[in-house]
């Protein structure tokens, strides 16, 4: 056996994603890149700076009256006009601003200073402490805030900052509520557990790990409450609580304006607009902060997707298969024949290229590979269920003689569910928690088979018995949350069978299940294939599952099929280095064989779409790569009707080269000197 040169471990650090964002370089924060966030922040800055510095720049004293110019419209002398006593509006609005802004800020500080620590403590100590704090805040929430505020004013007088501080105490209950929820969910994260196991004290866990993760919510809540605070101050002033005449206040100015609606309608505009804009700005800023996480996701219009689909339909007409020299004919017993399929991000890189698959009637085809290899995309394209912004951009999907590529959505709907069905990885997600199993089964049965309610229920019970559910009547009455994972997946399979499909696409159907339950589901699928002549495309990452259920298998790597053929051929005599490596990495060995001391491993990670190299996409990680691998080459027929996409396949077979794991200790030896 020729010992291959192991690749240096250095490329372990090949980033799995091209580093699009150099971390921590100073940039405009994401929330400021949204127009709402930028304008909101700008307005708040203008208002805050403007009102705090008002005494320095306002053109008139707030009490200077100009009775000749009562209720004037904006002019060069009075930029925003004058009030009923001829006082300059700009000066009054600017001077009045500092009170609502400062007292709202005070309210915020009080509300968070009380609510946030309580939330952190309660999240850390579920049980008695949490219950006590929560009940106490509920009492606070139950108090009628308006009445209480008026009572406070009655006692302390027109001390608005003090009143707002009291209001902050009341609001702290609401802050606590929101923050408790966030803190609890942050504490669920494993890195918090890890820090606790590290022996970090409670304060440091909170300050280092919990609080930073709550930052966005704190900012959103703060901005929103700030707006509310300003409204409350203005509302109080409107009612006459606040600085008395002649001192200006936003609320009183609006009150004043409301009595001059007919003789001086302009009066309402400046003060009302400033108040409204300030509150809107605070909320816009909150929105922008909240949306920060979702920034950068580009949306593609439906039109673009449709255009791409049309282009694909056109392209398939003119170009033959350029990838595979052998244009594989479609066998007579094929239920599904995929030829030269290409799936791409619209206006972006290819995700799947040159995939050809054939599924014979009553057989199971396995699509196997690691995550990011395009196996799920391939399976989803069979149903026309690709994610938004992803479309088939070439090739054909011939299902029972009809090419599905480029068909209108309406026509595809006729296939989906009735002739091609899907079961997915998460059975619980596939079932609607609000409806009983009976309701979820009888709906599709009536739609697909055109029968009445009673008959549909009989068929539903029969379907459940077909998927190995003994007490079908009890299950029909239950709701999804009452089922175990295995039972839910059986129901999903029954649901998929309601339209009596010819092809079932099973996307990792057992990945989320326990191994004993997985064995039951695999047995069920095998029985269905045997008894009903169903054909299945099974997506999985587990070679054992392939060995158990699949007649044929296609191994995918970086968006293309690298080896395909009968399962026994591919798994027992793998010819592509990637297949060899995958098998060598699998710790499951048949009884009687010793457990390997080392597992085969593949250095680096799967290259992401758009970064695939010319020629063999596996070459960068392959132990046997040569220069010949880096130019395009045709596939080689193998395993009967299958193929291998490796230029060195003959070479490797001739010298009986196989993928062997490196020596013990290789994983820890990188550069000189490990941790001793």
């Amino acid at each position, binding site marked *: 056996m020729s010992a291959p040169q192991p690749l240096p471990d250095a490329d372990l650090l090949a980033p799995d994603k091209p580093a699009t964002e150099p971390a921590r370089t100073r940039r405009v924060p994401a929330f400021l890149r949204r127009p709402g966030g930028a304008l909101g922040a700008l307005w708040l800055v203008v208002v805050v700076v403007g009102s705090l510095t008002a005494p320095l720049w306002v053109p008139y004293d707030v009490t200077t009256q100009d009775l000749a110019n009562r209720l004037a419209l904006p002019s060069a002398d009075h930029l925003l006009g004058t009030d009923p006593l001829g006082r300059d509006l700009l000066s009054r609005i600017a001077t009045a601003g500092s009170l609502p802004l400062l007292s709202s800020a005070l309210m915020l500080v009080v509300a968070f200073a009380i609510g946030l620590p309580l939330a952190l403590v309660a999240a850390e100590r579920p049980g008695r402490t949490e219950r006590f704090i929560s009940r106490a805040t509920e009492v606070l929430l139950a108090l009628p805030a308006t009445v209480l505020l008026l009572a406070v004013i009655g006692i302390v007088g027109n001390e608005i900052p003090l009143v707002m501080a009291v209001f902050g105490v009341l609001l702290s209950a609401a802050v606590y509520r929101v923050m408790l929820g966030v803190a609890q969910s942050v504490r669920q994260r494993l890195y918090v557990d890890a820090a606790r196991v*590290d022996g970090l004290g409670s304060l440091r866990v909170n300050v280092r790990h919990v609080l930073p993760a709550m930052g966005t919510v704190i900012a959103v809540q703060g901005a929103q409450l700030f707006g509310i605070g300003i409204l409350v101050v203005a509302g109080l002033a409107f009612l006459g609580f606040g600085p008395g005449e002649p001192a200006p206040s936003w609320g009183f100015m609006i009150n004043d304006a409301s009595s001059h609606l007919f003789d001086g309608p302009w009066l309402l505009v400046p003060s009302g607009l400033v108040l409204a804009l300030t509150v809107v700005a605070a909320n816009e800023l909150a929105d922008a902060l909240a949306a920060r996480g979702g920034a950068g996701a580009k949306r593609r219009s439906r039109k673009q997707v449709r255009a791409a689909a049309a282009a694909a339909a056109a392209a398939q007409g003119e170009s033959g298969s350029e990838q595979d020299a052998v244009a594989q004919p479609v066998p007579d017993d094929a239920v599904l024949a995929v030829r030269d399929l290409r799936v791409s991000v619209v206006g972006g890189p290819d995700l799947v290229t040159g995939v050809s698959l054939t599924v014979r009637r009553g057989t199971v085809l396995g699509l196997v590979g690691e995550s990011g290899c395009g196996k799920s995309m391939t399976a989803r394209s069979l149903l026309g269920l690709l994610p938004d912004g992803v479309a088939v951009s070439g090739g054909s999907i011939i299902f029972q003689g009809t090419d599905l590529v480029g068909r209108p959505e309406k026509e595809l709907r006729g296939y989906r569910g009735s002739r091609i069905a899907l079961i997915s990885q998460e059975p619980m997600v596939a079932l609607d928690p609000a409806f009983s199993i009976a309701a979820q089964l009888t709906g599709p049965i009536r739609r697909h088979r055109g029968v009445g309610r009673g008959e549909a229920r009989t068929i539903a019970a029969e379907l459940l018995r077909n998927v190995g559910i003994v007490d079908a009547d009890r299950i029909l009455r239950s709701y999804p949350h009452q089922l175990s994972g295995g039972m839910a997946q059986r129901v999903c399979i029954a649901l998929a069978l309601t339209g009596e499909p010819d092809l079932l696409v099973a996307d990792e159907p057992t990945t989320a299940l326990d191994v*004993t339950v997985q064995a039951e589901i695999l047995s069920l699928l095998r029985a269905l294939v045997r008894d009903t002549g169903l054909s299945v495309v099974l997506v999985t990452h587990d070679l054992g599952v392939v*060995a158990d259920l699949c007649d044929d298998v296609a191994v995918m790597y970086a968006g293309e099929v690298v080896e395909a053929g009968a399962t026994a051929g591919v798994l027992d005599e793998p010819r592509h280095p990637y297949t060899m490596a995958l098998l060598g990495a699998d710790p499951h060995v048949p009884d009687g064989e010793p457990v390997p001391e080392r597992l*085969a491993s593949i250095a680096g990670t799967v290259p992401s779409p758009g970064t695939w190299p010319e020629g063999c996409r596996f070459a960068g990680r392959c132990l046997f790569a040569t220069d010949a691998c880096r130019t395009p080459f045709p596939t080689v027929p193998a395993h009967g009707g299958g193929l291998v996409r490796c230029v060195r396949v003959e070479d490797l077979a001739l010298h009986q080269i196989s993928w062997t794991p490196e020596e013990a200790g290789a*994983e820890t030896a990188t550069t000189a000197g490990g941790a001793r």
Partner: protein
Amino acid sequence: MTAAAPVREDAATTTPALEVRDLVVRYGSGRKARAAAPAIDRVSFTVAPGETLGLVGESGSGKSTIGKAILGLQPPSEGQVLVQGRDITSLPLRKRRGLAADLRVVFQDPYSSLNPARTIGQTLVEPLPRGTADATTRARQALESVGLPGDAVDRYPTQFSGGQRQRIAIARSLVVRPKVIVLDEPVSALDLSTQAQVLNLLADLRDEHGLAFLFVAHDLGVVRFLAQRTVVLYRGQVMETGPVDDVTLHPRHPYTAALTSAAPVPRPAEQAARRAAREALGIGTAGAAAPSPTGCPFATRCPLATEVCTTERPALRQVGASLTACHHAEELTA
């Protein structure tokens, strides 16, 4: 061979690196919780220095709860946890800082176990006492010992792939030179080739540093690669425990038999034979009926179950090389 791993000859006589005695964990409080079956029901085991013990079971078996109870993340209701002979059962997390050097953890999900807002270096030095002079050097060494370059200390978790993050999580547990590491499903979120890298790495570290691993996993194949002994859990109780090859190749408990035969192997011919053997076993569907509180938890699914299995809980007893909690263990081996 796993047997070649350095299990000390005198493992039985030296102080175990980790010992769990009659551990009981109940969730919730009050009368209702007392009446319900506990999540962990009288589980005991030891892990010798340099040894790896596999803790195997399906979802709901309580394997992760045991890990949490050892780490102090879930207070035990009864029983004891000893690290290096020292009883830490009721030691609150705050007081474990000194202990943190001996007992470490690697979690399953490499994506949520690293704080995205902190650099790798900041995360790695966290378990070190404040003011450790050579903290950064030790962080670099730890990274290098798991096959990553030392300058990764200045980067953030998002710049690494899943497999690399799991290496970082392992480095984080190594930085204080621990004795015992609880590995809570460390490879189950990883792809096959990455899983192989991490398993190889763990095997290397165990052999180089003489670490004791408690390896919590649902996959017996993976456990067989790394562990010398294994404990099979079902509904919070130990069904079988013994040398990993004996347990997987000659299971004495029907549940272990169900578990081993259900794990598929990537060889079509062998897998067909295993499938036939599994179907011949006649194991009942999971979750068919709640087991009797007084009997064996597996009785409702067990093909060998008789009257006694529902009335009397079987005690662990020596059958062959393993300890088995089954009234009918001999029938299975026959």
